C-alpha cells in the first residue's frame, strides 16, 4: 500500500485494491478522523476560554460604578476589596508576556483570537467532512466485497 492511496480519496481505484489494502486504508482513515475530531475539540475548548474572557471584561465596572469586590486569599477565605483601576487590564498574550490594555482593546483582542480559532476550526471541519465521506464510501466497498464473497461461497455449495 502506498501512502498516496491513503490520503487522496479521489485517486482510489476500488477495483484495483485488494481487501487487505482497503482495510489498511480504512484503519488509517479512522485514526485520521479521530485525530481531527480531538483537535477540533481542543480548539473549541480554547475558543471558549477567549469567549469567557471577553464576557468577563465586558462585566468590569467603570469608574462611575461601585467597584468593590471579594478577593480570594485562599480557597476558603475572601477579603473585601476595591478594583483600583478598572480602566486598564493586563492581557496574557502568550510566552510570558502581558500587555496593558483598555477594556475595549482587550475585548477586541479576545474577539480576534476567538474568530481566528473559528477560521481554523472551519478548515479542520472541512477536512473531517471529506474523510467521513471517504470512510462511508470505503465501508460501502467493503460491504460489496463481503456480499460478493458470500454469493461465491453459496454458488460453490
Amino acid at each position, binding site marked *: 500500500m502506498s501512502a498516496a492511496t491513503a490520503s487522496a480519496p479521489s485517486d482510489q481505484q476500488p477495483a484495483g485494491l485488494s481487501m487487505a489494502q482497503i482495510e489498511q486504508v480504512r484503519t488509517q482513515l479512522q485514526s485520521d478522523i479521530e485525530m481531527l475530531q480531538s483537535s477540533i475539540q481542543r480548539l473549541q475548548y480554547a475558543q471558549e476560554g477567549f469567549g469567557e474572557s471577553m464576557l468577563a471584561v465586558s462585566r468590569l465596572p467603570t469608574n462611575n460604578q461601585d467597584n468593590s469586590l471579594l478577593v480570594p486569599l485562599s480557597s476558603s477565605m475572601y477579603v473585601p476589596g476595591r478594583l483600583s483601576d478598572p480602566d486598564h487590564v*493586563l492581557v496574557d*498574550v*502568550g*510566552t*510570558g*508576556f*502581558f*500587555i*496593558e*490594555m483598555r477594556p475595549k482593546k482587550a475585548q477586541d*483582542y479576545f474577539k480576534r483570537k476567538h474568530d481566528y480559532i473559528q477560521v481554523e476550526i472551519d478548515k479542520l471541519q472541512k477536512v473531517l467532512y471529506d474523510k467521513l465521506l471517504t470512510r462511508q464510501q470505503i465501508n460501502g466497498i467493503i460491504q460489496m466485497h463481503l456480499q460478493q464473497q458470500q454469493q461465491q461461497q453459496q454458488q460453490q455449495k
Partner: protein
Amino acid sequence: MAPDLNKKLEDEVEKYRQTQNDMKKFVTQQQQLFITKTENEFVKQEFENLDSEANIYKLVGPVLVKQELGEGKETVEKRLVYCEGELKRLASLMKDTEKKLEIHREVISKIQQQIATNK
C-alpha cells in the same frame, strides 16, 4: 550459514527500530518547536499593533516585570530566530534519518532474500 544470516537480520531490525525511535523523537521536537514558534509569532503581531506608549509586562517566575516595548520585541524576535534555526536543523536531521531508514530497509530485504534462497 542460516543462523548467521538470521542473527544479521535480527541486528539490522534492531538498528532499524532504534533509528525509527530517533525519528519519532525528532517529530515530537519538531511539533514542540512549531507550537513555540506560532505562539511567539502571535505575540510579535500583538506588539506590532501597539504604539510605543503601551505598557508591557513579562512574567519572570512569580513576578510580573514591566518592560520596554522595544526590549519585548527584541526578545520575541530572538526567540523566533532560534526556533527557525532549530527547525531547519531538525529538518535536515530528519532527512538524513529518513535516508538511514531507507538503507536499513534495503539491507533487511536483501538479507531476507538471502535467507529465502538458501532454504
